[in-house]
């Protein structure tokens, strides 16, 4: 159900009112297709086939009999992978993600984003895996492309998370252990964590050869800190509270936050990670568009970096 708004994009608040996550994701993607009409970016995950000399013990099923007939030599034909791309969606569902000023939380937004990406990839025939986490790994689905997998993915996403703290290191290490094949890893989080632990965790991912995209989801209230009344502000993760006069605290906060964001951006750039900062009031279609655009640019970046190196 693609609603055409004035800006031709789906309003996130209206989107979040759709209860079913799968339906939500489909509306975003379909709207995206409709709005885009034609995508120049499909087919980017094709792997070439290779031949390798047969060694005893290889499965004779994979012998290239034609070649053997022609040349009398035995080669194993390595088939194309079942899917073009293995994409892992890492969704942070910690308590800090449950904050939301606009009627829905950042976690809702992150879920919808993950579901949208999952749907999008499955449309393309890519295998999609999922890992949700807070302090530890909550749900894990290996990357697959088969009927019903998308449904399972949606269900896993919809499970509520009760964890308090955010710890990026442990889940990222775990995903590195679990995923041996190189693939695309999409991390959706607010990245409210100390910078040093963040950079070491992200470097783990890049080090194992994965392509990493980070969506940093932030609430508009977090960005602007536009509270008016003095109150006790309670940390959703630690439960600690402090008394604040927002008008006094705002300037300092914005300064600190932008420093943090800048540092995160720098870290990502250093590690060759695509970093996309998303406000939870932003329509998902534009996010999806940014995502695809960034991926298209990425090839150039890497190439350039490689050339430099």
């Amino acid at each position, binding site marked *: 159900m693609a609603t055409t708004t004035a800006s031709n994009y789906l309003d996130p608040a209206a989107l979040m009112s759709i209860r079913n996550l799968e339906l939500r994701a489909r509306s975003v993607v379909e709207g995206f297709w409709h709005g885009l009409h034609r995508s120049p970016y499909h087919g980017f995950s094709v792997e070439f086939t290779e031949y390798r000399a047969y060694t005893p013990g290889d499965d004779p099923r994979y012998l290239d009999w034609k070649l053997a007939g022609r040349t009398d030599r035995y080669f194993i034909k390595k088939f194309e992978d079942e899917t073009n791309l293995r994409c892992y969606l890492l969704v942070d569902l910690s308590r*800090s*993600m*449950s*904050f939301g*000023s606009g009627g829905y939380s*950042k976690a809702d937004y992150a879920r919808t984003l993950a579901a949208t990406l999952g749907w999008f990839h499955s449309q393309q025939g890519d295998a999609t895996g999922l890992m949700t986490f807070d302090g530890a790994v909550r749900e894990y689905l290996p990357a697959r492309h088969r009927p019903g997998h998308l449904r399972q993915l949606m269900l896993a996403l919809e499970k509520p998370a009760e964890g308090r703290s955010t710890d990026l290191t442990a889940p990222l290490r775990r995903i590195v252990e679990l995923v041996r094949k190189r693939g695309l890893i999409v991390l959706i989080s*607010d990245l*409210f964590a100390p910078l040093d632990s963040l950079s070491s965790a992200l470097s783990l991912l890049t080090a194992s050869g994965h392509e990493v995209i980070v969506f940093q989801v932030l*609430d508009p*209230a*977090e960005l602007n800190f536009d*509270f*008016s*009344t*003095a*109150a*006790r*502000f*309670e*940390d*959703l*993760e*630690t439960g*600690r*509270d*402090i*008394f*604040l*006069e927002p008008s*006094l*605290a705002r300037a*300092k*906060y914005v300064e*600190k*936050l932008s420093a*943090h964001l800048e540092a995160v951006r720098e870290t990502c750039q250093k590690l060759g990670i695509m970093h996309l900062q998303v406000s939870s009031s932003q329509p998902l279609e534009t996010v999806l568009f940014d995502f695809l655009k960034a991926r298209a640019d990425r090839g150039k970046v890497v190439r350039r970096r490689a050339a430099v190196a």
Partner: protein
Amino acid sequence: MSFLAPFFALGALAVIGPILFHLIRRTTREKTPFSTLMFLEPSPPRITKRSRLENVWLLLLRCLALALLALAFARPFLERAMPGPPPGAGQRIVILADTSASMRRENLWPEARGKIEARLRAVHPADQVAVLTFDREVRTVMSFEEWKKTPMNERAAVAIQRLAQISPTWNATRLDAALLQSIEALDQADESLQGKREIVVVSDMQEGAQLDGLQGYQWPRGISVTVDSVAAQTHQNASAQWLSESEENDKPGEEIPLRVRVSNAAESKKEQFQLHWKGAPQGTPVLEAYVPAGQARIVRIVKPPTGATALTLSGDDTPFDNTLYILPPQPAQLPVLFVGPDADDDTHASLYYLRRAFPKTAHQNVEILAHRAEGAVPAFQLQQSQLLILGDAAGDVPITSARQFARDGKIVLMPLTSATSASVLGKLLELPTLAAPEATVKDYALLAQIDFRHPLFAAFADPRFSDFAKIHWWKYRRFDAAGLTGAQVLAQFDNGDPAVVQVPLGKGSVVIFTSSWRPSDSQLALSSKFVPLLQSLLEQSSSLPPQKAQYFIGDEVPLPTGPQPLRVRKPDGQTVSLAPGAKFSGADQPGIYTVTPGTQRFVVNLPPDESRLAPFSTERLIALGVPLRTVHETPAEAARREGQAQAVEIESQQKLWRWLIVAALGVLLLETLFAGKLSRTVSGSTIAST
């Protein structure tokens, strides 16, 4: 505006609570959840805001509600003058002096008299005083009328002088009756005095005083009671009480042990007591009784020594109730006279069964006297005998004696043993034409209609005993009861013929059985009804009243009714003459009383309640609704108490507290509405702000 309970107004200090809460709540309220505090530093709120009270109107409402509640509890009232007694009007006072037996202890009576004298001397000239003494009954020492008639300066002196002649009696304490009678005296007194009315009780307030009569009594307004108690040094008392023998022991020929209950007071420290026989020969062993404090033990005495008439208890501190008079019960001698020629061992005759019908019991000893001679019955036999049974074939002279016996108020029993008995009955009733022909009975006759309301058959009225159908009557004589004036048919046979008829004769009566208990006539003598039937006849005929083993001081003692006047000798040697048939009511001292002529003696003991000496709490009186005043009260105290009572009355009329409570509820309702509205707007604004 005054307050009944001003200390409750201190409750208004509770307004500090809401004020504090309004100050504190500021900092605790409104928590805003936020994703992280990583980038935030605490910024303290501005000092000027901190001390500011939030929601001043709400605070005011809450404080007002609390203040109203506190004010309501303080019971405010608007002062105004109550129509009180005119100044200078005298009081009416009844002074009640206890003269019961317990006042004989120690120095109690002189002390009580001293208190009364002090009160009499202190009375205001306008006051009216009556002095009454009470124990079992109330006696007037000086009435209101006498007080008024006596010159003003002599009143107290006269009363004191009269009081000096009075000493405590041996009677029980009936405080309830005394108080009620005092109220009556106050009510009857001069109506012109509308002032205060007061009863002053001067007593030892012993536990044994009777108060039951005050239960549920509605005390008239304006009468107050002051208790001026005299206290003994010690309440360590033990007492002995003779328990009359129970019915189970009522077996003939068996020695009945005397049972004496020794009770010890709860506050007593002594536990070992001795019982001595008074008047017993030297060497009679002393009975030991071990009774723990607050308990009672029963001492069994198999046989009192000869000549002993009283048991003395020793070992306690109060001697006035330590002598218990005891007379071993003597069976009543009740001779029954049989007039007729029956032989003693003739099993076919009436006399044989009669001799076996009255067993000897502890209470009575029935002797059957048979008069077989043709001559007149001796006068002393006629006088002593309690029942006369007239057999048939009695001679004319004995019949005349029997008629005289009935006329003196006793019963003559006449069983008709044959048709010829009718002539004997005719002579007895002086109806020569009377006939009683033999009735024709097929197999047997049964008693059908019995008048169980008549004393003769009353004992059988219970359905368990009323079955007479097992008695078969082989023969009986037909007899026309309707022909006799005043005849009452007490039982009928099943065909309607009379079986038992009572005919009045003089002061007494003749009871006619139309059959008899001889085996040839009926099965009556063999049945279980025979003995009780004859016993009930004997009881009706007998002039001896039922005797109790002992009486208590003040009890009325029934004496044998006889034609001649009786004299009763009291333990102190005084003699009281009594008209024939009167009851003796002069038992005013414990001891053994002797009745002459005759040998009857009876025992009068102290009422057991009089030995319960512990003073009772005045709360018992208050619980019974007695408007009690404390004794020692200065005029200032009295005035304050009066004022207080007046304030209570005004307050109870005005009942301002109700309106204050209503106002407080109204304020609380306002507060609820206001607070609800406020919280809605606050939460709304919070949502809007984020």
